[in-house]
């Protein structure tokens, strides 16, 4: 860690400070009470104290005001530059930024998290804020004390140790630093080698590496590669074996199928053989049967001829019997025809008389019925006319009632409309009244506006008068101020400082001069001393001239002697200050017409007072101007209000006084009341208009309905009257007559109907009798005709059968004569013999059996073909997958897989062992280095020994870096036994050693005030030497203790000065710190 820059503002007594640190030894010096320790405190606070800590209240500037701000820039390693800025106080803030180049910073943390992050960066053994052990004040730890301890307790480090740290980070950091320097080279080499082996396989966090070059990854990828190959080949082999198994199965199945095919084929052949035998035997039997049938047929022909001859004779006899039957029937028919003719003649004669009398009676009755029907119809029509007339009468009465109702409605709606119109007019009148009141209100408002506007105009006039007066006063003051040419108060302070410096410088020259001139001959001497007017002396006597600073002797024309007091440097300083006086002060004195700084100061004060007065006047002027500007439109407003007033009164059209009572009644808020009343009136008007409209509509509808009912009534009366004209006797009488006529006509109709029925009945009885007699005669005639036809048919049949039988007999005879019975009998014998010689099949085979056998063969063939195809297919698959080839490869790959698996296990075990070894080595190393005292003590002891010229032999530190004491005379002496100065020196050595090991900055705040010159020389050399290794910041009021004269900052130059190749920087805090 190295500090780069510190900026402080309003921190306790410091108004402002800015320090740029050098890379090595930084000696920050200044007189007492300049703020050195405050500056050191600001470093501690910005690094360690949370901004909101109440402890920071002590940093608030003594005279109050701003919140203290500290900003520190530091570097922890190359290109890791941090900047922390804290504004202390309850409403303060913290910001931590990081940069690689020291120019561009990125925010890393803000607010409360800044301190946590800072402590993580510092690793000083201070826990995160808010945890246990965090109390009020700047948190402390062993390292914080060692690196930043205060001037108040320079030996604090000797009383502390790591034991008291709340967090382990400080100890870890020191252990790591000391471990690094204390490790055995062999061990370091082994550790590095082990670390390298371990890092090949594991990440920093101890996880297995997964990158491509990780041995685990390589072994696992190799294994995976082989596993994939193995699985692929295994799948091939499995497939091969499965196909081979399938092939074996298919082969077995093929054998079975071939056997089945052979059996089915054999069965088919056998069946076909048996079928052939059976067919041949059946053929022979058929031949025998045919031959036998032939013989039988020929023998039957002979018997058929004999039968036919007998049949022909029988039929000839039957033919003769039929001829006789025909003759008998024809005779009976002639008799029946004669009886029928006689009956028909009797019918014709009887029916002529009956028909004539019946027709006459019927015509008479028909006429009577027609007359009765007509009478009925007429009576019916008359009845309907009476009924219609009655309905018209009723209808006219109904129309009259309806019309009366409609008339009443018309009357009612008319009254409603009138009421609605009246209400509407009333409300409109009310609204007009409200309008008048509104205009009256407007007129009254306009009157008030006019009054307000008039008041504004009056106020503007008054303000303008005051504005002019103030402006005049300000201009007067301004003129007076411009006449005063004075510098600023700050410049005057600088002039006073210059005056003091000049006075000091002149004081340094004011050494007192005594010049004695002893002429050897008469001499004219002109003497000028201390800038007084010159005086002349002449003669040979001794002249003594006493002056303060300056004497100038003009020795005739021999020489001019100028004697000035003080050393050359002092003279140069005085001259420079004089020069500055002339350049920086004299022009101001001249411009202000002041003779000295006091007079100038008075003029400056006068100018300041004038400035204040001018500012006050200017403020008053601005205020008045603003007021005037705010009233700028008052004239226009007055004019506008007057216009509105005139317009309002004109619109009102009557004196406003006449409405005073009405307006008074409107109450405190007349506008609101008016608005409310207007709203109510508008609502009432709206309701009245709505009622008017609705009633108007109802009235119109009622009138329309009335008109319609009147027309209906008139039409009904007209129709009624017209209908009643046909019934002068009155409707009841007419209705009774009609009813009587209807009764008579109905009775006549019924009578005629009965008579007609009686007539029809007697005509039908006579006709039935005649028809019965005729029917009997016809039946007898029909029977006789049928008998003739039957006899003739029997005769025809007998003739036909006889002729047919005769023809058949002839044919049979011809056939009998054509056949050879002997030959037929021979053929029968031959066929019977052949049949007897043929083999008989052992069993019977049907066509279905043969078909089944053939189908079985086809099936077996098909099955075999299918198996063959499957075998071909499986074989094709096997050719692809490889069979034995795949097995051979799989064997190789399995072997490789086992090896790779073994290799992976070995790799893992191997690297796990490397990891374990590294852990154990580190643990052992940490255990060795845990006695930090042992590691650190020699460095301190050696220096302490050198410093004290071997007075002390050793320094004893505990494992936790507590100071046990120093060894002197073989015994351990507690540090408290040492003198204050020696204790300070020991503490400083301890702190320097620690900082050196950690490579970090150490701040020494007037650490060695009790050391003698010799030891300070020793320390100075040590610090300059160590400044090349780490940064040391020293606050002191005695820079000469740490710096050579040449290394110090020259007065009046930059506050920093670098020497020793930049490893030593002197910083004059008088120029860097601005104190209250």
């Amino acid at each position, binding site marked *: 860690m190295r500090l780069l820059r510190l900026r402080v503002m309003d921190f306790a007594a410091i108004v402002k400070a800015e320090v740029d640190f050098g890379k090595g030894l930084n000696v920050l010096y200044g007189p007492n009470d300049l703020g050195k320790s405050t500056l050191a405190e600001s470093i501690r606070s910005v690094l360690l104290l949370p901004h909101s800590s109440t402890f920071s209240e002590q940093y608030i500037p003594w005279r109050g005001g701003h919140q203290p701000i500290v900003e520190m820039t530091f570097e922890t390693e190359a290109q890791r530059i941090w900047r922390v800025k804290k504004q202390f106080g309850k409403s303060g803030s913290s910001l931590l930024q990081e940069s690689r180049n020291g120019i561009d910073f990125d925010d890393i943390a803000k607010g409360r998290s800044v301190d946590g992050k800072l402590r993580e960066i510092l690793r000083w053994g201070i826990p995160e804020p808010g945890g246990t052990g965090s109390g009020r004040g700047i948190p402390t730890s062993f390292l914080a004390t060692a690196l930043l301890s205060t001037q108040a307790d320079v030996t604090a480090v000797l009383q502390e140790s790591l034991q008291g740290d709340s967090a382990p980070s400080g100890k870890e950091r020191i252990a790591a630093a000391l471990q690094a320097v204390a490790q055995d080279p062999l061990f370091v080499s082994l550790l590095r080698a082990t670390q390298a082996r371990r890092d090949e396989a594991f990440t920093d966090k101890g996880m297995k590496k997964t990158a491509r070059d990780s041995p685990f990854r390589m072994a696992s990828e190799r294994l995976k590669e082989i596993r994939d190959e193995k699985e692929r080949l295994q799948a091939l082999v499995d497939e091969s074996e499965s196909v081979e198994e399938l092939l*074996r199965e298919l082969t077995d199945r093929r054998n079975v199928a071939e056997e089945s095919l052979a059996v089915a084929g054999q069965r088919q052949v056998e069946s076909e053989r048996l079928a052939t035998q059976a067919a041949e035997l059946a053929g022979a039997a058929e031949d025998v049967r045919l031959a036998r049938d032939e013989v039988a047929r020929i023998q039957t022909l002979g018997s058929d001829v004999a039968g036919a001859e007998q049949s022909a004779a029988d039929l000839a006899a039957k033919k003769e019997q039929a001829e006789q039957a025909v003759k008998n029937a024809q005779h009976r028919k002639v008799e029946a025809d004669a009886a029928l003719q006689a009956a028909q003649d009797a019918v014709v004669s009887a029916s002529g008389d009956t028909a004539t009398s019946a027709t006459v009676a019927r015509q008479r009755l028909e006429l009577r019925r027609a007359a009765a029907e007509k009478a009925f119809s007429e009576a019916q029509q008359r009845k309907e006319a009476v009924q219609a007339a009655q309905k018209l009468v009723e209808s006219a009465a109904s129309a009259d009632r309806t019309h009366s109702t409609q008339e009443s409605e018309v009357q009612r709606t008319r009254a409603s409309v009138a009421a609605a119109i009246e209400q509407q007019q009333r409300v409109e009148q009310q609204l007009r009244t409200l309008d008048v009141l509104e205009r009256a209100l407007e007129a009254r408002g306009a009157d008030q506006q006019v009054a307000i506007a008039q008041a504004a105009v009056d106020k503007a006039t008054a303000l303008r008068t005051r504005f002019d007066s103030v402006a005049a006063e300000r201009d007067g003051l301004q003129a007076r101020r411009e006449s005063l040419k004075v510098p600023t108060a700050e410049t005057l302070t600088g002039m006073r400082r210059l005056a003091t410096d000049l006075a000091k410088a002149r004081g340094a020259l004011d050494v007192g001069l005594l010049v004695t001139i002893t002429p050897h001959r008469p001499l004219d001497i002109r003497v000028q001393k201390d800038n007084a007017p010159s005086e002349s002396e002449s003669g040979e006597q001794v002249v003594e001239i006493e002056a303060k600073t300056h004497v100038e002797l003009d020795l005739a024309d021999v020489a001019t002697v100028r004697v000035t007091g003080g050393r050359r440097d002092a003279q140069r300083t005085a001259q420079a200050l004089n020069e500055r006086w002339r350049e920086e002060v004299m022009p101001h004195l001249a411009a202000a017409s002041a003779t000295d700084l006091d007079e100038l100061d008075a003029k400056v004060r006068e100018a300041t007072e004038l400035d204040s007065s001018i500012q006050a006047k200017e403020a008053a002027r601005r205020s008045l101007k603003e007021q005037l500007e705010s009233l700028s439109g008052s004239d226009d407003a007055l004019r506008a209000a007057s216009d509105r007033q005139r317009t309002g009164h004109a619109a009102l059209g009557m004196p406003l006084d006449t409405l005073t009572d009405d307006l008074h009644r409107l109450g405190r808020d007349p506008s609101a009341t008016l608005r409310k009343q207007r709203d109510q009136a508008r609502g009432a008007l709206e309701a009245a208009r709505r009622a008017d409209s609705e009633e108007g509509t109802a009235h119109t509808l009622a009138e329309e309905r009335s008109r319609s009912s009147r027309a209906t009534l008139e039409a009904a009366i007209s129709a009624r009257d017209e209908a009643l004209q046909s019934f002068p006797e009155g409707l009841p009488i007419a209705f009774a007559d009609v009813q009587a006529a209807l009764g008579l006509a109905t009775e006549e109709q019924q009578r005629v109907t009965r008579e007609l029925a009686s007539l029809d009945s007697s005509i039908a009885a006579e006709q039935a009798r005649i028809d019965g007699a005729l029917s009997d005669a016809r039946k007898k005639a029909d029977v006789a005709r049928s008998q003739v036809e039957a006899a003739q048919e029997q005769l025809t049949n007998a003739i036909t059968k006889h002729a047919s039988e005769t023809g058949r007999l002839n044919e049979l005879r011809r056939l009998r004569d054509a056949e050879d019975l002997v030959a037929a009998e021979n053929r029968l014998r031959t066929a019977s013999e052949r049949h007897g010689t043929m083999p008989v099949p052992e069993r019977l085979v049907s066509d279905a059996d043969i078909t089944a056998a053939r189908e079985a063969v086809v099936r077996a063939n098909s099955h075999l073909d299918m198996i063959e195809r499957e075998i071909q297919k499986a*074989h094709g698959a096997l*050719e692809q997958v490889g*069979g034995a080839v*795949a097995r051979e490869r799989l064997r190789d790959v399995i072997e490789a897989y086992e*090896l790779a698996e073994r290799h992976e296990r070995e790799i893992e075990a191997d690297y796990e*062992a490397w990891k*374990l*070894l590294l852990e154990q080595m580190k643990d052992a190393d940490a*255990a060795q280095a845990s006695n930090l005292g042992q590691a650190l003590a020699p460095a301190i002891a050696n220096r302490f020994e050198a410093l004290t010229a071997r007075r002390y032999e050793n320094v004893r530190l505990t494992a936790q870096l507590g100071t046990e004491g120093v060894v002197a005379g073989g015994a351990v002496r507690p540090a408290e036994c040492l003198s204050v100065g020696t204790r300070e020196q020991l503490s400083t050595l301890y702190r320097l050693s620690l900082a050196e090991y950690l490579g970090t900055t150490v701040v020494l705040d007037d650490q060695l005030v009790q050391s003698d010159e010799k030891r300070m020389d020793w320390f100075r050399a040590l610090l300059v030497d160590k400044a090349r290794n780490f940064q040391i910041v020293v606050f002191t009021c005695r820079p000469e203790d740490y710096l050579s004269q040449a290394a110090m900052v020259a007065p009046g130059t930059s506050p920093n000065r670098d020497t020793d190749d930049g490893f030593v920087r002197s910083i004059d805090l008088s120029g860097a710190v601005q104190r209250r």
Partner: protein
Amino acid sequence: VLRLLHTADWHLGRRFPSFPEDAQKKLSRARLDAVGRILEVARRHGVNAVVCAGDLFDEPTPVADFWEGLAKTFNDYRGPQVPVFLVPGNHDPLTPESVWAAHHPFRSRLPSWVHVVDRDDFSHELMPDAVLYARPCRSKAGEIDLASALPAREPGDARIRIGCVHGCTFDIEGYQTNFPICRDAGVQRGMNYLAIGDTHSFRDVTANSPVPTVYPGAPEPTNFDEPDAGSVAVVALFRPGVRPRVNRESVAFWRWIDVRCRDLNELRGVLTKPDLERHVVRLHLDMAVSVGEESEVERILNDLQGSDAAHGRAGVLLIDRTNLRLQPGSAGVFPENLPPVIKDTIARLDRLIEDATDDGEKLKATRALAHLFKLLKTHEGVVGQPR
């Protein structure tokens, strides 16, 4: 007398996945080198023909290096150009895409005296009274007996008839898919000699038959279980009726051996084996050693195996450490003058071994000790002297 050189199972392009990459290359290259030696044997014996009975490539489409290398070997051969017959086997069957296909560039690079058996009815008159019949495998697996499919001797044919096919004569129950060859196929088909290939060890499967049916084996072994590999058969065929004489001729460069070492002395003895650089050694370490001895074991293994900087003593070494057991604990093998921090490390590991409840932890800590011991050995000169 008709002399033949009968070879098979070159398996050019074969990979050896169990071996480290450089060893794989050595073994793969060796197979092509063997072809040159085969041709040299053929020249030395003045054979009339060289018959190669299948599986000459390890797969039907080998990488170009191998078929180009084989073509180059033939083209570079400066001996008498007797006919050479290349028969496709089940590893490199004759398929349209295979290296044997007529359009494959390999074919065009072969010299005219090298014939590829790319027809089922292949025959070649070796001499006026001697004829070669051969038939290729056309798939990786097959049930056809290619030997029985060769033409039978016609009545009156008195020529010397040689058959050459690839297949398996083993009598295996069930369905045969590796081109089964009937053992008396040579007799049945009227051959005088049946040259077959498939098995990697030299084998005459018909010792009592008048027609020798011979596997010459692979010219270079492909595994540790092929003790009789590494040969070719040189066959002399006399007049019909006299059984041809078959001589086995070694052509292998590599000898594959399994070595089991049960103690450190036996392991040291491996170093003294002659011709170790021509051996493919599978070393089974079946021993228990201390942390210090383990370092010695590793040293010997390094000696055998070689490193980036030095050749190993063994041609190819495959180490089986399955049964190499580490005796737990430092057991006083570490020097006394070690820095305290290292001593502490050793003591810590010893404590871990003592406190370990399972063998895994114990072994891990022991291995860590072994690592430390080996690291210290690399700092020899530092350790062992007072510091």
